[in-house]
Structure formats: C-alpha cells, structure tokens
C-alpha cells in the first residue's frame, strides 16, 4: 500500500511537471528585469566608462537637482515622486548607480572602493550640466545621502545645496552603530526568520539570482513590525546584490570618513529624519548632522525610512521651501 502511494505521488508529479516549462533561475529577464546593457529600450547614459540607467524631468537649463538613491545597490524608482520638483523650476536628474537598479553590472572587485561612486556622480553632473553657472543641488536618501555628503566633502564649491534623508552615518563608526540597531536579528521574529530561511532555498553566484534573492529579502525587511518603520516595500526595479555586498565589505574593512572637509561647506543643508524608524531617531540625526556647520534638522512625521515615498506629503513642502532658498 505504501509503495502504491509513493508511486502515485511520483506519477502525479511527473505528469504535472511534464506540462510545465522548466526555467533556469540564472537566465536574464525571468526573475529580475534586464539591465540597460541587456535592454536597449531603457533610458541610459554613458559616463565614466559605464552605462547607467538615467532619466530627467524639467527644463535642462533650470538649477539641477540630482536625486541619489540608497543601498548601496538600490534604485531610484521609490524616489520618482521627486520628479515633481521639475514643476517648481528644477531640472531633476535621476540615475541608478553603477551595479545598482537597472544600470550595468560588474564583478565584485569593481565596487570595492567608495571613490568610484563619487566619480560616477561627478560624471553624471557633468553630463547633464548646461553651463558652468548652472546650480547643482543634491538630494539623497540613506546611502544616497552619504554619497551626496562624500561629494560635498570632495567638491564643496560645486554644490549649491543638499537635502539629506537619514544617511546611516557620515563616518563608518556612526554607520556601524546605526546598522547594528537596524539589523539586529530577533530570535523569534517573523522578519528575522523570513530573512534567513530563504538561504536554504536559493543560492547563487550570478547577478540575476543574487539580485532576485536580494529583492525577496527586501520584503522580509519591510514586513510587519520592521525596524525602519516602513508601511511595506517601496517600489523598486532591481537590487544590486553584489554591489551592496562588496561596498559593505569594503566599508567594514577599510572604514570611511566623509566629514574631513565638511567644515568648509557653510551653505545650509536640509537634514530630514523619520518619525517611525526606531533605529534612527533624533539623537542619531543630531549626531550625524553635526558634521555640517549649517544644518536645518527636520523630522518627517507619519513615515519610516522611505521618506520620499511613504512620507511624500509631509516631506514635499519642507523640501520645496528649502530648495527655493538655494535656487
């Protein structure tokens, strides 16, 4: 009887699968969208030896507002509401960083430096800039705010203003403190177990599989009760898993300090933090923002870390007021 049951189960399985396509999880375009070098219909620019997914909104001659996404390895889809600033007299520039979003992928060692992200940002600005007098304002979320600061630190005279949303830290020590609070695994928590349970089901060493797995893990980190205070996953196209992993490893091993020259930057900076991100909070915001000599510190109510998506209604008027002062 047992053998008969087993045989029937195997037969049913065979019949079921014989009518289905068997798919390869590493094949481009099945589980994650193709990148700009794989899909020529995507908008892109060629800068600094790479191809980046990029698009703009508004008059190219208006002051440039460069929107910088988080991660590393995120993308700008969750920040697209910022295109609204184009109606307020800004030329809004979006780009997915190297190895992130829909931009071209590279081997791991390519991302083992912070400088390449700074150089790519500089190249994007130069690509879109219409005149030497055109003002450039940076708007970054999370890692994007850290990258914006790294750029200000290196080129303080080139930036007319900055909107920074919850940078993890502007030094590795501050960032590490924040990440420890954010990523603490709670033994009996649904979020923590969803995060690690996936490891037995999907393993990989290629960008397609790893980026797909990163997308699923992002859902675990935005599940009910998540520490970042997000109401759910913000929209995304594709996570850059290798970029994220390599950059994090570099930061842990080499450290970084994006504040060495910030005292030179006396222009007022808008520094926003969220009400619901329990790992961030006012104390951390004050500590991190204190590296700038001139800061407007603002708490955005009713939202977690994904401020420009879930907190747009609260964030937009504050940001617009600030941008009009530096325009």
């Amino acid at each position, binding site marked *: 009887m*047992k053998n008969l049951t087993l045989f029937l*189960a195997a037969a049913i*399985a*065979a019949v079921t699968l*014989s009518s289905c396509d068997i798919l390869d999880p590493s094949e481009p375009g099945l*589980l994650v969208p193709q990148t700009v070098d794989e899909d020529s219909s995507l908008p892109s620019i060629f800068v600094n030896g790479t191809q980046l997914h990029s698009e703009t909104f508004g008059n190219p001659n208006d002051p440039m507002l460069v929107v910088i996404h988080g991660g590393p390895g995120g993308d700008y889809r969750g920040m697209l509401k910022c295109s609204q600033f184009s109606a307020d007299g800004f030329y809004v520039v979006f780009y997915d960083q190297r190895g992130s979003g829909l931009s071209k992928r590279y081997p791991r060692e390519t991302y083992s430096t912070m400088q390449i992200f700074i150089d790519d940002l500089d190249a994007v600005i130069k690509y879109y800039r219409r005149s030497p007098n055109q003002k450039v304002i940076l708007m970054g979320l999370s890692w994007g705010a850290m990258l914006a600061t790294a750029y200000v630190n290196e080129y303080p005279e080139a930036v007319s203003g900055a909107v920074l949303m919850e940078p993890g830290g502007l030094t590795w020590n501050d960032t590490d403190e924040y990440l420890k609070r954010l990523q603490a695994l709670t033994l009996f928590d649904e979020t923590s177990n969803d995060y*690690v349970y996936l490891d*037995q089901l999907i393993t990989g060493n290629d960008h397609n599989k*790893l980026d797909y797995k990163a997308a699923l893990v992002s859902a675990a980190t935005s599940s*009910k009760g998540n520490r970042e205070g997000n109401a759910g996953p913000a929209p995304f196209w594709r996570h850059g898993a290798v970029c994220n992993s390599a950059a994090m490893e570099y930061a842990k091993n080499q450290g970084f300090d994006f504040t060495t020259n910030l005292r030179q930057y006396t222009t007022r900076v808008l520094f926003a933090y969220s009400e619901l991100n329990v790992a961030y909070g006012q104390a951390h915001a004050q500590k991190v923002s204190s590296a700038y000599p001139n800061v407007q510190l603002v708490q955005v109510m009713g939202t977690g870390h994904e401020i420009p998506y879930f907190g747009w209604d609260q964030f937009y008027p504050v940001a617009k007021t600030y941008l009009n002062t530096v325009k």
Partner: protein
Amino acid sequence: MKTIVKALLVAMALAGTASSQNINWRSLGEDRRNVVQLNFGYDFGVTAQLGYSRSFTLIMPVVVGVDLSVPMGDVLVDDFKARIGGQVEVVEVGAFSATIKIASNFRRYETQLVRIVSFGSDFAAVAGYYRSTWYAAAEFGFDKAIATNLKHSDVMKAYFPGIRDGWYVPTGGHYYYGVQGGKTIGETFEISLRLGATNAQFDDENAVLPYYVQLGLGVRF
C-alpha cells in the same frame, strides 16, 4: 532536461523512507522500535522540529521516519520543511559505526512578494563512536533544493510585470558538517545535541548565518 527532472522526482518519491533523526544504533531495542523526537534550535531560522521514526532489522539496521520543522514567527504555517527518508548503518566495527542517510524534503516559504514550494534531497554520512548509553559522531551532508515553484504576488508583479512564475531547476544547495552526540536517560528518553556549519554549493554566496545547532529530546516506545 525535463527527462532528468522527472527521473529525479520519481527517485525521490520512491526513496526508502527514513528519519533524519539522530540515532544511537547501540541503544536501539527490540521492544522499543518507535521514537518520537522533538528538536529545537537554529537551522536557517529558529526552528522547532517534530519527528517520528521506527527501526527495522533487515540485513543491517535500518531506521525510517518523517519529520516536520517550522521556523518561529507571527505566522507559523507559512514556512515549513517536511522530510521523509531513511538511514542505514553500513559499517560496525566494535563501537565504531558509520551511517548513510537519504531523505526527500519539501519546503514552503511565503512573504508578501512570493510563495515558494520546493522539492529537494538531503544526503549525509555520519560516523562515530557508539555505546549503549551515549554516542559521539561527526556528520557531513549535502542538501539540494532541486525543483522550486515560484508564484509571485500582485505586489511583485506590479514592480516587474514580466516576472515568470513557474518551476525553476535547480535553485540552491549547501553542504553541512558538524558533530552530534546523545545520552540515553533510563530506557525511554534520550537527549541529543547537533551543531555545525553550512557552506553554499560551488562559489555561491553563503547563508547570512552559516551555522546550525539543534537540541533534541527523544522518547522511545
């Protein structure tokens, strides 16, 4: 490719059923062939596992059985792993013993982006020192997620309309290696401890926490 997959599934389904429980061959008794075991620990999540096994004496000792494990969380039944398999003692030289374990596994995982069900296999070898009231052994095994069905939610499809639901083959695998030991208490109870590390197959990225530890309580009857 399809033929190979079908053959693998048939082989898995027809594999002798045996438990992947921790077994002390020297303490098995003619009158207590059944074991219910409760394990708790970390195995790709904080998990609780319940299993049943029964021993037989054929040409050599064989144990068959099933087990079910669930990770902790607010929703207990959205993720789980069920195993059905066999283990046979292939070498006995004095107190030294070596065992081969083969199991088929079925896993389910669900979040707001995807529902995953996966069929796979688990092969292991265990070798160690076994006395009537205790044992200590080393283990080495390979766990493969062979055929995995991905069904994505409306949220995921809104983000990427072109995403393909379906059967993906194969999706992952990892090696595991560690130690295990146990102590019999009276004639009915046995406690066991199993701990070790995991390593993803080939050059794949390792797990976030590549370790496992399991504390077990077995009841014989």
